[in-house]
């Protein structure tokens, strides 16, 4: 299978890419290409132009400074998980990256690409929301910061303008003692999340002070399980409080069903995986 014809520009810099996007409304950004190129081969996508960010070195690299981790948008999953300090600061990133696609996807897929693509079955979108991340974006009207909760709009849709490029992903380094984990039921053929759950739980004086429980795979965009979060806050984490929160994890969510997993099966998976994610975070 071949993509339809398109014109191709290898961007030299972010400014070059933005100028090219602004001048060519039919253009799409090529990042790692492991979602876009398969979609183009199936003719589900047929952009008139690709602006390739593959050689833009200013978009690479990971730094952890002053409590914030800054990740260049074109950093691959493998570069991210093996970057110095990442496995200690963000064990949840290792949980998630280990179960993304397969080794070839982990070698080429990028964090900026994953967030901009916003696939409903993506893993890192949920982790990014659970950790309170934000993205730095550059377009013709300049730079701006978009918080995670404002980035994801709907299936494969973000609040980015057509001429905007994600340049950096920022993740606040969690407070000491924050419990995090990602658990997933992967589709056996595609590897995408049928249900994925990212959690980040902060505690103070032996009780939960803040809880983020984010669902992916089952919903049109990564979504917080607010009922379960509320059920945890103020509680001491034990077998009973975890089971109670997990039992209400699917409440209030708009859950999608398909031929592989019905709405009710996904709701059940949410409850099971929420429990496993919290237990795994506690036992880490």
């Amino acid at each position, binding site marked *: 299978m071949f993509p339809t014809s*398109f014109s*191709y520009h290898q*961007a030299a810099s972010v400014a070059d890419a933005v100028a090219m996007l602004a001048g060519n409304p039919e253009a799409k950004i*090529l990042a790692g*290409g492991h979602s876009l190129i398969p979609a183009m*081969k199936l003719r589900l996508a047929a952009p008139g132009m690709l602006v390739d960010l593959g050689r833009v070195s200013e978009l690479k690299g990971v730094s952890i400074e002053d409590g914030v981790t800054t990740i260049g948008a074109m950093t691959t999953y493998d570069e991210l998980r093996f970057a110095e300090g990442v496995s200690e600061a963000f064990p949840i990133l290792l949980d998630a990256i280990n179960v993304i696609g*397969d*080794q070839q996807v982990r070698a080429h897929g990028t964090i900026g690409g994953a967030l901009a693509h916003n696939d409903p079955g993506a893993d890192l979108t949920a982790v990014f929301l659970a950790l309170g991340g934000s993205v730095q974006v550059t377009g013709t009207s300049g730079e701006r910061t978009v918080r995670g909760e404002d980035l994801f709009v709907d299936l494969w849709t973000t609040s980015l303008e057509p001429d905007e490029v994600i340049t950096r992903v920022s993740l606040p380094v969690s407070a000491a003692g924050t419990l995090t984990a990602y658990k997933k039921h992967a589709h056996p053929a595609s590897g995408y999340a049928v249900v994925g759950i990212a959690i980040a739980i902060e505690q103070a004086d032996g009780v939960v002070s803040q809880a983020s429980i984010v669902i992916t795979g089952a919903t049109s965009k990564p979504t917080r399980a607010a009922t379960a979060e509320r059920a945890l806050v103020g509680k001491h984490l034990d077998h009973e409080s975890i089971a109670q929160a997990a039992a209400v994890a699917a409440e209030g969510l708009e859950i999608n069903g398909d031929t592989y997993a019905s709405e009710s099966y996904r709701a059940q998976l949410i409850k099971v995986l929420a429990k496993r994610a919290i237990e795994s975070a506690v036992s880490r």
Partner: protein
Amino acid sequence: MAEAVAEGAKTKVTVTVNGQQRSASVEPRMLLVHFLRDELGLTGTHVGCDTSQCGACVVNVDGLTTKSCTKLAVQVDGSFVETIEGLADGDAYHPIQDAFWEKHGLQCGYCTPGMIMSTKALLERNPNPTEEEIRHELEGNMCRCTGYQNIVRSVQYAAQTMRKKATG
């Protein structure tokens, strides 16, 4: 920076394949696997599913394990590409090829070039993988004949002989 390559126009792509510099003029939409097979005549790299799922087309690009059906040739201009044809030293098989022979890691052989190239990337990063690590890292390579048992044994055998060789 160069101008954009217009729709339907061709541009020259040069890659170093198995140590040899090779060039061809191709459209931006040409996939790396077709560049290797149709432009350079290196048909050892196979097209299996063509939907980025089976791993039959895996090659190494600048040391990274790569589905060549999921890369455009223009993306790898200037890169170093290693394919199955680059492994043997004359008539002498590479230890990974030997291992697949020795441990019956193939039946029909269609997935084998991809399996072997994925194995090479795996063993370069991790010379002594556990069985679990082997299965996890080769998850992107499908085999419809062997049930994977002998492939895992082949990788373990290759790892063993390559470690021995490395330590003399």
